[in-house]
């Protein structure tokens, strides 16, 4: 895909994800047993052969930096192009943080405006989907429009909280700039293609705070805006309920998101661990268990990341345990999201109650345990309980 550079916005605070994003950018939030959210965008680039990629960061970029590194896991460590992480920086003439994605994008325009780059593919680094970007770019080019909005048809009966788009044929007529509950028609999924010429002209104007406001304004002002329909899986896990539901949907026998397509692998960094170890007495059903995990207890409808240890007699249900969480002997977990390296003492009881229905996950029923928190033996936490990130973890890498 010569001439196209992908720019992913990873600067948000991710307030909806609570303690999971207190110390890390939302794009770096662990997902699906071994991934981080950004892996989907980067793997899409790799398979779509978009070899020039930039990640725009601002908030808590450390773990994202660490994860992406030189881009090797996605074959994006290249002599020419490859992946770059652009963090706001101070210069002699100015030193200010960026104010929203559109500002971030326009401020970095000089960085992208290099030889041969004719258009930018702009998306969020936090969305979960598999998409061949070359189809999107080809459709954009064929349309002759200076900008393209990717849209998704809403499944009847499954309303989405998103930005409504009205289309006629393949043209965007109207784009809402704020989210609402949409139960029919199309929504925009925050994935655009912009011609560089259009961006250069736009950069001269004062930029509104969001990319959507900006695109909506352009559409309103008569700029021809192309609509590209993505007809596959797509989720924006920007709050805990969506994150939980999206994660748990992976456990269904006919999960709509395939992580195992040999032609479209989802690539990630740094999971060099031995096979998962099931000890005598282990009972694990309807779950994902990553390499390096060790289970002696009972696990149901849960996702266990690498290095998780479930000691004998412990019971984990409807839960998501990030890397290296230890569940002590006899502990009981119901509807818990535990961040990395959380230690749960023997016999602790977290989130006791009737099973949580993943489909209608009520976020107020979930327990969320911040990174590296230590819960002593016998500790009890009610449904909806939150344990903050351990202070030492805030200083570290997530």
């Amino acid at each position: 895909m010569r001439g196209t550079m992908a720019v992913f916005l990873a600067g948000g605070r991710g307030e909806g994800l609570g303690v999971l994003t207190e110390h890390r950018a939302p794009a770096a939030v662990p997902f699906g047993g071994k991934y981080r959210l950004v892996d989907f965008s980067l793997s899409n680039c790799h398979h779509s052969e978009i070899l020039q990629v930039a990640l725009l960061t601002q908030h808590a970029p450390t773990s994202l930096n660490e994860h992406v590194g030189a881009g090797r896991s996605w074959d994006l460590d290249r002599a020419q192009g490859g992946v770059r992480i652009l963090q706001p920086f101070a210069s002699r003439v100015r030193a200010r943080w960026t104010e929203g994605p559109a500002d971030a994008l326009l401020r970095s325009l000089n960085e992208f405006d290099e030889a041969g780059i004719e258009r930018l593919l702009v998306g969020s680094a936090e969305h979960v989907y598999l998409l061949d970007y070359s189809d999107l770019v080809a459709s954009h080019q064929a349309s002759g429009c200076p900008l393209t909005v990717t849209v998704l048809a809403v499944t009847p009966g499954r309303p989405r909280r998103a930005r409504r788009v009205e289309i006629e044929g393949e043209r965007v007529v109207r784009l809402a700039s704020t989210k609402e509950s949409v139960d029919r028609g199309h929504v925009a999924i925050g994935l655009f293609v912009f011609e560089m010429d259009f961006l250069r002209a736009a950069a001269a104007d004062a930029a509104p705070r969001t990319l959507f406001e900006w695109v909506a304004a352009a559409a309103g002002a008569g700029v021809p805006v192309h609509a590209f329909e993505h007809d596959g899986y797509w989720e924006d896990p920007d709050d805990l309920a969506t994150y939980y539901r999206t994660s748990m949907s992976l456990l269904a026998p006919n999960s709509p998101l395939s992580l195992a397509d040999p032609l479209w692998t989802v690539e990630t960094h740094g999971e060099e661990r031995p096979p998962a170890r099931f000890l005598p007495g282990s009972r694990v059903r309807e779950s994902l268990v990553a390499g390096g995990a060790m289970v002696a207890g009972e696990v149901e409808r849960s996702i266990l990341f690498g290095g998780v240890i479930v000691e004998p007699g412990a019971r984990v249900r409807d839960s998501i345990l990030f890397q290296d969480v230890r569940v002590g002997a006899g502990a009981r977990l119901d509807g818990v999201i535990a961040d990395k390296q959380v230690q749960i003492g023997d016999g602790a009881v977290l989130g006791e109650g009737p099973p949580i229905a993943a489909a209608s996950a009520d976020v107020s029923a979930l327990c969320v345990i911040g990174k590296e928190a230590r819960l002593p033996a016998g500790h009890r936490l009610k449904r909806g309980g939150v344990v903050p990130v351990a202070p030492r973890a805030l200083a570290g890498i997530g």
Partner: protein
Amino acid sequence: MSGQAFAFLLAGGVGTRLCLLSEKRAKPAVPFGGKYRIIDFTLSNCVNSGIFDVGILTQYRPTSLNQHIGSGRAWDLDRSRGGVRLLAPYRGSQENDWYRGTADAVYQNMVHIRNRRAEDLLILSGDHIYKMDYNPMLEFHRDRRAAVTIAATVVPVEDTNQYGILELDSRGRVLSFIEKPKEARSQLASMGVYVFRRDVLWQALEEDAAVESSNHDFGRDVIPRLLAKGADVYGFPFPQYWQDVGTIDAFYAANLDLLSDRPTIDFSDADWVIHTAILDLPAVRLGQDAAVERSLVANGARVEGRVVRSVIFPGVVVEKNAEVVDSILMNDTRVLPGGRVERAILDKQVWVGQGARVEGGIGGRPNTVCAEHLHGGLVLVGKGATLPEGVRVGPNARVDPDVVPEDFDGDVGPGEVVWNPRATGAAQSHGHPPAGARPARISSGREP
């Protein structure tokens, strides 16, 4: 360590004692431990010891090995200086030809280290399972001003006739070295890990090359000749886990040992990661009726049935009501509903048809063609074999690679062999998967 050591890794072995497992691949490329290949251990030892300059000598069926090693990226051995090189025999204007033995393989590749500063050269076998920091051995070698240092491990008395046995004095100097002795003077066996002073190696290999009657083997020729000349040859005892997995029984036992409460070798040591080629597969998926106990299961596997005391590689699928006990299932092998596998080693991409029963046992009638290697009761199924619905396969049976249901003549009794009639000459290396019957790789959760 930079510039100080260079390792030649010998990976050309035919590995006949592993029977089907090494028929189509070099022994170091045989899968082990749920996600690794045997060579990963030696190669990881190199990089974990800070040795980033490695030449791998290949000869026999190197395709799997070449593909596995690639550019060496998984081991951080894709480097502009040093890194890993796969060295296959080539024909030149001079006497180069097929390697005549391990010593000859190194001799023909000495040109490779011409521009290296390394004063000490490691010669490593790619056939063993062990975690070893080579630095203490290199220090020992330099400290003793040794010409050659041989790493040695204690083996059971009854196994001494399979190894080169060393007798050492109190400072570690080798008093005697006898290859496969009938009566051993010690239980200290050569691990096939040598440190040579560069000048010593060059001279020894030149001499050896000129001897017409030589087998050109380090253990049988080069070391005995150096000892006879009174060279300073030392033994370096290595007290930790070291396992030769060169026979079916040893291979099976070493895999199953990983399932014990306290395995003798730990693969989860963050300070000594065993690197292997990255497959980008999702976490293990366990279905509603899954029951998995005392097993290792690699990412990309899917279990709907029951798995007990087994080693399950990536992409394996164990369907509903299927059962796998005391077995090793390599990549992308699939046990269909109602199938049962017990005391068996299934190579990659095997299909066990609905209700088929592959049931090894203990002992029994040895295999009719490889009695020497297949007599302990295990069943061995070759890569890509498809077992028909409802078939029964007994102890010590051997099912050849790429067989299809039509190749079976009813059940397979103890010690019997299912041949692949298409496997003759060149065709053998490619095999004939049944047309349209199944994908080459099965690891998606969405396949039919």
